[in-house]
């Protein structure tokens, strides 16, 4: 990112429910656990990582495997 880009980054009205597509790879912070599943909340969008052994607050990279745009929920796997 150039110096100029750093000034313009984030210069927009960002949605509370960011949308993703299967295949998207992204860095995230693990925000919760539900039994064996890890949960990632990005704004009000919720992603579930089934049977994933990571702790809350861990910083990881994930790949989105399924996403429901209406609900802003989906599933992802650890990379």
């Amino acid at each position, binding site marked *: *990112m150039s*110096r100029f880009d*750093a*000034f313009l*980054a*984030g*210069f*927009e*009205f*960002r*949605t*509370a429910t*960011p949308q993703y597509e299967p295949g998207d790879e*992204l*860095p*995230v*912070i693990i*925000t*919760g656990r539900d039994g064996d599943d890890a949960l*990632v*909340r*990005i*704004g*009000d969008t919720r992603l579930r990582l089934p049977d994933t052994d990571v702790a809350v*607050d861990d*910083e990881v990279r994930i790949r989105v495997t399924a996403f429901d745009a209406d609900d802003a929920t989906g599933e992802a796997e650890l990379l």
Partner: protein
Amino acid sequence: MWAANAAEVGAALFPAVTFLLAGLLATGIGTGYGTTIAFVTLVFPAGLLLGTNPILLFGAILSGAVFGDNLAPVSDTTIVSAVTQDADIGGVVASRVKYAVAAAVPAFAAFLIAGATMTTTDPAAGSGVTAGAAWGLLHLIPVAIVIGTAIRGRHIVEAVSWGLFTAFVLNVMLGYFDLVDVGVSDVLVFMAPESGLVTALDTAPLIGAVIETVPAGEAGVGGSLYNGAVGFFPLIVLTLLIVAGAQIMRQGGGFEALQRWLLDTVATTVRRAEVTMVLGTAMVNAMVTINTAAEIAIAPYIRTLGRRFNINGYRRANILDANTSALGYIFPWGGGVLAGYSAMQTLPDEYGWFTVDMVVNPAAVFPYVFHGWFLVAVFLIAAVTGFGREYVSDRESEEVSRV
């Protein structure tokens, strides 16, 4: 005064121009308190001579201090906000320009309108002061040296040290040529009771300039160099106590309980979480006099709340610092307001025409710290509308470069 006359800045324009200049200085030197004291001592009397409304002028100075405290890369609040939210200082500053400008533009307009409409005082008649001297601008040299050295990547302590050294040499030289009433002993002086050794040292060349013989009860160290350092001890002690208190709260589980309650009942959506972050920071800063200490106290909550919604480090640092900078200069008990008020109280001794009535009551100035209010408003609007919001997946903050 000389610059104001040269630019023909009238009483009505003076607050708006003062806001800009104070903002520039504070952004350069990184200390809002220092800027407030410098402007109250040097620019405030000049404004009164032109007939500017004193309360509005004090509000303009504090607004400039807010701007710089918020934006300056070398400001203590900027550094705390970046380091506690794991974001690099350069990226944090770049990402917060949009908020600072969004607040500064309406603040500048407000100072123009208020300057033109608010009643002004009679220009201090009979003061005998009609123009300043151009050499007064020489005082900007040390500031330029600090900014230049810091921009060249030198450590901030080194940059400030060069500024101090230049200011010392400059003031002693101006004093030597009778342009200002400053001598070496105003900068640093050791006051000792009279004895054979002290008398010998007092009359010695060079070293004698910083030694004075005084009655036994008045022995001590003085001068602006010493007093400036001593002035920071309360902040150091308060910061240590707050960090210790926060650590005890963390170990005892209080931090976790409060965090859980916030997440379960208050911050249930990303909008509500960001509004909570804005109001929480504002509330703590409204209660604690020294804003850097308040910022250190609230920083862990902002970090955890923000991370629970994958809000990236830049956004968290910006929410934290904007409200810290703003509130520290608004309420009458805020450190910045008190620093300015203390400096103002010395003015009647300094200028014969400056009467005690001209000192601004700290409780009167809070509505006029326009930039501070606009900055809080910008962040409340940004939290609700999502303006400037960035998630970790949008952009990861770079590694923290610790100054």
